[in-house]
C-alpha cells in the first residue's frame, strides 16, 4: 500500500483525527495533523508523527481554511490530505486545490462532491439512476411554484436548502397558508448559512425511519455496498444512536435499498467511501432517497464491526489507486453493532453544550466494546467545536445482546468534569420503542418528557 501515499495531512480534529492517525499508522503511512491553537496538545497531536499549528482556535481561520490546509500539506511534505467528516470533508474547493498542488484528496473527485453537494442535482441523479425520490420539486423560485407543488404532493411539505444537507436548513409546512412566509424566511437563512438561497420542496414523511447504505467504490469501476445502518434516533435532525444492520427490515426492502445505493454510486463512478441516505415511510413501507454523503460518516464503526472491514483504511487504499481487494460476495455480515454518541451537553438544560476540563475519564473496557475518542483525563473540552466526546460502539451476536452490552457499557463509563449525555443514552437505548425496533425520527422528541436527568435531581 505504501506505494503511492507516504504521508497524509489529517485535516480534522477530535476522535476522527485519532481514528485516521491509527488507520494510517497501520498502513505504514506517516501522519501530520493540522491543529488549531486549541488542539495543540490533543491526543491526535500526540499520536501523529507531527502536528502543525495552522491557525487560531476558530475554525474559519484553521480547519475551514483551504489555503492553510493545502499550504501545511505541501510544506510538511505530505502527498495526501484526509479531511475526515465535517469541516472541509465535502468541499470541492479543497479537493480541487489538492489536485492542483499534486496532493491526493482522500475522498471522491471534486465533480462528485459538487454533484451530491447540490441537493437538487443529487435528487436528479438519483431519479436518473432509478432510485425513488420523494415527490417534490426542482428549485422553487416563487410561492406560486411552491403552491403548485403542494397541490400535487399534498401536505405536510418540507422546504429544504439545496446547499444544505445533514438536516440543516429544513422547515416543515403543515398549512398551505404558511408557505409564502416560510419560503421567504428559509431563503434568507439558506443565503446566510450556505451562501445560496436556492430552495426545493418535498413531501414530508411523518412516521419516518432513517436508513442509510454504506458504499465503497474504487477508481477501477468497482462499487460494493457494506450493508445498511439505521439512524432513526435523532434529536433536532442530529443522529444520536446508530446501528447495523437495520432491525426488522423485510429482506426485499433491504435488498432494494442496497441495490439502489449501488446504482447511484455507479451512476457517478463513485470512488471512495460514501453513504446513500434514505427515508423509510413506516406507514407505507416505501423508501425514498434523501441525500448522499460523500465522506466517511461519524457512524461508520457500526458497519466496521458487522463486516470486519476497516473503512478508513479502504478510503486510503482506493485513494492510492488500489482496486478493491474484495467483491460483493466477500462481504460477510455478522452480528449486530450499536453506536452511542456521547456529547458534552446538559440534558436537563435543553442539551446546551458544556465545556471545561475532564477530570476523570474512565471508558468501559472488554472485548466487543469499542470507544473512539480523543479524550483523556485532564483534557480541556474547547468551546469552539462540536460537543462530541466519544463514540461508544458495541458488538454482539444478536441485537438484544448488543442493547444489553451498550447499556452495561454506558453505566460503566466514568466521566467527571463536564456533563454528558451518557445517562440520556442509557435511557434511550432502554426505550421500549428501541427494544422492539419501532423507533422513528420522532422517538426522541416524543420520549424526552419521560427522561429524568440525574443532573437535574
Amino acid at each position, binding site marked *: 500500500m505504501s506505494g503511492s501515499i507516504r*504521508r497524509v495531512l489529517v485535516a480534522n480534529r477530535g476522535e476522527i483525527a485519532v481514528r485516521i492517525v491509527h488507520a494510517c499508522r497501520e498502513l505504514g503511512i*506517516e501522519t*501530520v495533523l493540522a491543529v488549531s*491553537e486549541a488542539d*495543540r*496538545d490533543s491526543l491526535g*497531536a*500526540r*499520536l501523529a*508523527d*507531527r*502536528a*502543525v*499549528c*495552522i*491557525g*487560531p482556535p476558530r475554525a474559519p*481561520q*484553521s480547519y475551514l481554511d483551504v*489555503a*492553510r490546509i*493545502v*499550504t*501545511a500539506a505541501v*510544506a*510538511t*511534505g505530505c502527498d495526501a490530505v484526509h479531511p475526515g467528516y465535517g469541516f472541509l470533508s465535502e468541499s470541492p474547493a479543497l479537493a480541487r*486545490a489538492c489536485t492542483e498542488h499534486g496532493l491526493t484528496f482522500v475522498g471522491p473527485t471534486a465533480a462528485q462532491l459538487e454533484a451530491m453537494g447540490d441537493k437538487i442535482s443529487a435528487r436528479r441523479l438519483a431519479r436518473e439512476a432509478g432510485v425513488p425520490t420523494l415527490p417534490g420539486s426542482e428549485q422553487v423560485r416563487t410561492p406560486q411554484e411552491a403552491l403548485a407543488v403542494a397541490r400535487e404532493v399534498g401536505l405536510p411539505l418540507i422546504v429544504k436548502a439545496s446547499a444544505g444537507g445533514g438536516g440543516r436548513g429544513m422547515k416543515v409546512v403543515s398549512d398551505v397558508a404558511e408557505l409564502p412566509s416560510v419560503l421567504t424566511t428559509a431563503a434568507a437563512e439558506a443565503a446566510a448559512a450556505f451562501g445560496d438561497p436556492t430552495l426545493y420542496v418535498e413531501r414530508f414523511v411523518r412516521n419516518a425511519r432513517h436508513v442509510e447504505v454504506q458504499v465503497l467504490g474504487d477508481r477501477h469501476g468497482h462499487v460494493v455496498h457494506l450493508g445498511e445502518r439505521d439512524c432513526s434516533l435523532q434529536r433536532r435532525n442530529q443522529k444520536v444512536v446508530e446501528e447495523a444492520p437495520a432491525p426488522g427490515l423485510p429482506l426485499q426492502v433491504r435488498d432494494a435499498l442496497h441495490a439502489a445505493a449501488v446504482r447511484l454510486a455507479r451512476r457517478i463512478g463513485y470512488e471512495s467511501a460514501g453513504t446513500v441516505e434514505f427515508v423509510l415511510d413506516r406507514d407505507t413501507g416505501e423508501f425514498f432517497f434523501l441525500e448522499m454523503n460523500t465522506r466517511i460518516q461519524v457512524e461508520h464503526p457500526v458497519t466496521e464491526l458487522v463486516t470486519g472491514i476497516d473503512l478508513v483504511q479502504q478510503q486510503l487504499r482506493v485513494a492510492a489507486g488500489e482496486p478493491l481487494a474484495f467483491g460483493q460476495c466477500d462481504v460477510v455480515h455478522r452480528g449486530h453493532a450499536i453506536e452511542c454518541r456521547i456529547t458534552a451537553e446538559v440534558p436537563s438544560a435543553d442539551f446546551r453544550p458544556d465545556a471545561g*476540563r475532564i477530570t476523570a475519564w474512565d471508558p468501559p473496557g472488554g472485548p466487543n466494546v469499542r470507544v473512539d475518542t480523543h479524550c483523556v483525563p*485532564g483534557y480541556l473540552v474547547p468551546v469552539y467545536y462540536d460537543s462530541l466526546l466519544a463514540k461508544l460502539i458495541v458488538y454482539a451476536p444478536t441485537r438484544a445482546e448488543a442493547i444489553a452490552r451498550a447499556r452495561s457499557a454506558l453505566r460503566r463509563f466514568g466521566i467527571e468534569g463536564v456533563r454528558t449525555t451518557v445517562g440520556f443514552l442509557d435511557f434511550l437505548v432502554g426505550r421500549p420503542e428501541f427494544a422492539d425496533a419501532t423507533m422513528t425520527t420522532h422517538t426522541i422528541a416524543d420520549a424526552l418528557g419521560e427522561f429524568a436527568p440525574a443532573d437535574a435531581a
Partner: protein
Amino acid sequence: MSDPGTARGLTDEDVDQVTRLVESLDRSGFDFLQVELGDLRITVGTGEPPVPGAAPPPPAAATPAAVPQAVAPARNAADRPDTAVAPSAAPVAAGSVAAGSVAAGSVAAGSVAAGSVAAGSVEITAPTMGIFYARPEPGKPPFVAVGDVVEETTTVALVEVMKTFHSVAAGVRGTVVEICVSDTDFVEFGAVLMRVSTE
C-alpha cells in the same frame, strides 16, 4: 533561597536545587511536588497548578515580591512521542514551547524573566501559518536585520499562504536582537519570528 529582608530573584543555586527537585519528580512518575520553607514555597507538577486555598500556594498574585515561585511545565516536548518526521521544512516547535513557558512565567508573581523570553525583549510571532519571507522580493535586501530599530508599524516580514501575502508589522518599538527563522521557512501559527529589545 529567599531572604525576607532583601527581596530578590532566584539565584543560580536556587535554580539548581529546584531543577534537581523537578528532575527527581520527573523521574518519579508523580504529578506534583510542593515544598514550603518559611516563606519559601515550591510547587512543581503536571496539569493545572494546585487549587488556591486547597493547597498551600496561591498560583498568582497576592504574593509579595519576596516570594519566588516557579511552576515548571513538566511535559511539553516529552509527551509528543515522535516529532521526527520533519521533512525539509523547519519544524517550529519553538512556538509551542515559548507559549508554554510564557504561560508558566506569567504565573510567577514578581518574576522578572519568564522562560525563554529574555528580559526586556518582545517576540514577534507569525500571524498565520505559512511561508516566511524575510525580503519583499528575491534579490532585494531583507526587511530588517539584527540591530535595526523598528517602529510599531514597520513591516518586518511577509508570510505567504497560497499566493496570499500577509505582512507582519513589528507591533513594538525597539531593536531587533534576533531573527529566529530563515527566509522561506515554513512557520506554524504563533511561531516566534523575531525578538525585539525594547530597552
